[in-house]
Structures are given as structure tokens and as C-alpha cells.
């Protein structure tokens, strides 16, 4: 009503500038539609790929579980799918994954958090500008390089301390994997801490707090949700890491939580089988899909945990 009231009573002369601008531009509409379609298909593609991967894993695993009962898969204490007397106890591979990841996280979480606190709260501008690219470079080193670093550099050093340490072991692989994960934990945690508004820090300093008190009692709690996400990403990286373990941990299925022993993880087992000449459709071949599905469920669990933590600890500041 208001709009119609504002239309001038005298009609505009035809051919004037105003009426030209109101001409219908159907082509613009079509262009918009095409762009929207392209954007949508890019988004849809990633969803489709995820669904396809899950479909393949579930389908092949289904075939596997026709032969091997789920209870054997979960509770058997041996993993010997290539032997005549085949056993399919995923626990064996899971123990290797959990042990190596545990070692890695014992390195990555404390060191990553300390580095993040230092870079965010203590380091000067120049130090941060130099240190951060180096830190991120550490995350860009190919994991195969880390694997050989563990095997040929770290293991011999560790053997000087523990002479009984076998040449392939979960400890060395886990420690190096921890070093690999540090940049992920440190970089994301630092981002979360730097996002904490300056007004909170000023509030803390104004109460007479030191830098360390401010960092530990105000900034870190305020950044909890971001730091938790960083940890979860670190866990996911550790659980999914393949090459370091395939090279340095020995690929021998071994039900143990002792890091000084060799062991195979879910990922290194998949590499081992995928490299071998197993015929498609054989039960040995299908084990890798069951193992892959287990891995997927684990990372899914950690992602959901991360999502929940983010929501639970999201700070209002």
C-alpha cells in the first residue's frame, strides 16, 4: 500500500532511463540458477562419496560376517586370517591401535597444549611469526618419512636405554606419531586461545594476575571447546595413521598393551593385505573391509564426542 502510494501519478515517458532499468533480465536468472546448481553439486558430491564409502564397507563387511560370527570378531583373542586355522579377533588389531595412539597422545596433547599456551600468551609477535610456520611444516612432513625416522633413528636410541627393545615396536612408532600430531593440537588450540577476547585477559590482569595465572585460569578454560576439538582431531589422526606404524611397528598382530612390543594396528593390517596378492572375494580380502568399518566407527565416535564437547563447553563471552 505504501509502495503504491509512492508511485508518481504522472507516468514516466517511454524510453526514459528509468523504464529501461526495469526490463526483464531472464538471462541473469538463468545464470544464478546454474551457479547455484554447481555449488549444490559440489556439496552433494562430498555427501555422495561418504555414502558410497560407507555402502562399500558395509556391503563387503556383511559378506564377511556371513562367514565369521560377530562374537568371534569381537571376542576372539587371535588375528590370523591368512592361516589355515583362521581367527578373526579384531581385539588384537585394536590393542595395537589403542597402544600406539595412547603413546602418541601422551606426547602430543601435553606438548601441543604447552606450545599453544606459549605461542598464544607468552611469545612476542616476532617469535610467533617464525615459530608457527615451522610448527605447521612439521605437520606437512610425509608420514613415510616419519616412519623411517622412527625405525632408523629413534628405535636405535631407545634400544640404548632399553636393550631388550625389539627393532619393530609400538613405542617408537607412537612417539614419532605424537611428534607428527603436535602441530595439529598446537595450532588449533592456539587458534582457540587467541579467539578469547582481550577483555577477559585484561580483566584477569587488572585483578593482579600474572601471565601464567591468566593463561591457565582464564584463557584456557575460555577456550575449552576449541582445545577439546583440537584433541579430538589429534586422536582421529592417531587412530587413522598408517605409514609410521606399517614401517616402524612391525605389522605382527599381537594382543598387547605393552608399547615395547611389536604390533599391528587396524590401518597397518589393511596396508599389509592390500599390498598382498589376495584374490577378490576371498575371506582374507574381506577382512580389510570389516577392519575398515571398525576404524570408521571409531573415528565417527570421536567426531561425535568432539561435536558434543564443542556444544557442551561452548563459552559465552
Amino acid at each position, binding site marked *: 500500500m505504501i509502495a503504491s502510494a509512492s508511485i508518481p501519478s504522472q507516468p514516466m515517458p517511454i524510453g526514459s532511463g528509468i523504464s529501461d532499468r526495469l526490463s526483464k533480465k531472464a538471462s541473469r536468472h538463468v545464470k544464478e540458477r546454474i551457479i547455484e546448481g554447481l555449488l549444490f553439486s559440489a556439496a552433494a558430491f562430498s555427501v555422495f562419496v561418504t555414502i558410497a564409502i560407507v555402502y562399500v564397507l558395509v556391503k563387503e563387511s556383511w559378506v564377511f560376517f556371513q562367514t565369521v560370527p560377530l562374537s568371534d570378531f569381537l571376542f576372539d583373542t587371535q588375528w590370523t586370517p591368512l592361516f589355515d586355522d583362521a581367527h578373526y579377533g579384531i581385539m588384537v588389531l585394536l590393542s595395537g591401535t589403542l597402544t600406539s595412539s595412547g603413546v602418541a597422545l601422551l606426547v602430543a596433547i601435553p606438548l601441543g597444549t604447552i606450545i599453544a599456551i606459549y605461542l598464544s600468551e607468552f611469545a612476542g609477535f616476532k617469535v610467533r611469526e617464525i615459530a608457527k610456520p615451522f610448527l605447521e611444516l612439521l605437520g606437512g612432513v610425509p608420514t613415510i618419512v616419519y616412519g623411517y625416522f622412527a625405525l632408523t633413528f629413534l628405535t636405535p636410541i631407545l634400544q640404548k636405554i632399553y636393550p631388550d627393545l625389539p627393532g619393530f615396536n609400538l613405542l617408537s612408532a607412537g612417539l614419532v606419531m605424537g611428534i607428527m600430531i603436535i602441530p595439529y593440537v598446537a595450532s588449533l588450540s592456539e587458534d582457540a586461545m587467541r579467539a578469547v577476547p582481550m*577483555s*577477559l585477559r585484561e*580483566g584477569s590482569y*587488572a*585483578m593482579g594476575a*600474572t601471565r601464567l*595465572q591468566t593463561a591457565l585460569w582464564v584463557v584456557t578454560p575460555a577456550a575449552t571447546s576449541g582445545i577439546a576439538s583440537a584433541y579430538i582431531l589429534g586422536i582421529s589422526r592417531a587412530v587413522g595413521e598408517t605409514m609410521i606404524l606399517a614401517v616402524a611397528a612391525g605389522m605382527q598382530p599381537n594382543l598387547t598393551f605393552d608399547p615395547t612390543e611389536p604390533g599391528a594396528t587396524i590401518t597397518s593390517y589393511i596396508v599389509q593385505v592390500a599390498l598382498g596378492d589376495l584374490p577378490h572375494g576371498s575371506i582374507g580380502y574381506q577382512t580389510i573391509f570389516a577392519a575398515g568399518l571398525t576404524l570408521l566407527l571409531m573415528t565417527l565416535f570421536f567426531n561425535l564426542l568432539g561435536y558434543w564437547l564443542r556444544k557442551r563447553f561452548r563459552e*559465552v563471552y
Partner: protein
Amino acid sequence: MQIQTGVEAGVEGALLKADVRELDFYYGAFHALKRVSMPIYDHRVTALIGPSGCGKSTLLRCFNRMHDLYPGNRYAGGGIVLYPDDTNLLAPGVDPIEVRMRISMVFQKPNPFPKSIYENVAYSLRVRGMRNKSELDDRVESALKGAALWSEVSNRLKELGANLSGGQQQRLCIARALASDPEIILFDEPTSALDPIATASIEELITELKEKVTILIVTHNMQQAARISDFTGYMYLGEMVEFGVTDQIFIKPQKKATEDYITGRFG
């Protein structure tokens, strides 16, 4: 700047708590405070007024050495002498943390920590190493009572400070500043983010607080300065144009510039 005769009239019985003496301050190359001098009287409310960018917040933040947190800031001459110590708190040997333990601050926007109401108030005590639970309880309760917040939060001390309303959050920040028994509390436009009702309660609180503590407040609201302060300093372009008893400044300013600002002809 010369001390107005009116000041002496208003000083009766008031002791000097701090004295700003020909203070110069730079943000990098920017000369933000130019030979500023002003007295701060014990157990009185002193207000700083002036247009945006005049240096009133800069001066306030010198008192608790907040400028030390950022590189490039420089105290370039003069100082702030704190009594009864008779020490320049800007002197290089003085520990800013010790200064902040004695001179607390309340900010423009309420900034409660992401902690419970209790822990927000206990923070300044924990920073000082207080661990005794019953002593902490007592001090937190008396600080919350001092900030006129106790009756509203006594049964929800475990809740997050951020769950309170804006005015309550600001009173929480005042309780936090009060808990450690500071000698001076600095208020940096404490009501500019609040509605009129919350503002009124904070103003009333400030008037009550001067029984216990010396108050220095920056405000862009001249009526507020007139309502709550005993002394007022008018600043412009980094200089202290006029300082005096608040009534004098508002009723009979000595300088034309002050009068223009106060009557709204300028600023």
C-alpha cells in the same frame, strides 16, 4: 593547569590518595597525554569527562599500568604518586602486578570470566594465593554484599557468571574488584553498556562504595559525573583543561572551553 580555588573548599578533611604529576604518555608516536596533572582524594569519587579520544581512558589505564600489556606504549615523563607510600607507581622498578593488587578496575563492557559466580569473585583472592575455604567464602560473601548482588545470587553461586543480566554482570565485576580490598577502584565507563535502571543501581553503588575505597571514574555521560562525583576533571586532546570540585565545574567553570563542553555547545 592551575588548581582552582574551589578545590580547597571541597577538600576539607580529604587526604590526597594519589597525585598525577605532569604525566606524558605515548601510544607509539602518538602523544596521548600531555603534561597531565591532577590530584585524587581519598574516599572521594573523581570523574574524568571529555569528548572521545581526549585521553581520559588512557589516563585511567595508567593507574593500574594496563598499558604495560601492549608493546609500543610509553610513559614518557612525570608520574602518578601513590600515597601513603609516596611512590611513583609508574617508576620502572615498580612491579605492575603489585600496583594492580592495590588498584583494581571495572571495565566498560561487563567481562565476567567463564567461571561460576563464586569463582569470579574469588579470582582476585586466589591470584593472591588464598586457599582457605572458609576465608574465601567469607570474602566472597562480603564482596557480593558490597556490590549489592548477594541477595540476587546467594542461592546460585555455582552458576556461570555469564548467565546473569548485564547489570548483574557489571555488579559481579565490581564484586570481583572489591574482593581483594583495593585502595582505589578505576571505573572505565562502567554503565555505557547498560540500560537506565541498571545504570541507576551502579551509580548508587558507586556512591556507597566511596565509604570504603577511592574511586576514579571515566564517563562520557556528564549528568552521571554531576550526580556521583565529588571532583571532576575535563580533558581535551590529551590535556587536563580544568579540574575542580564537581559543583564548581558544572555550575561555574573557570574556563570557556569547559563551559562550552558542559553546556553542549561542543563535543
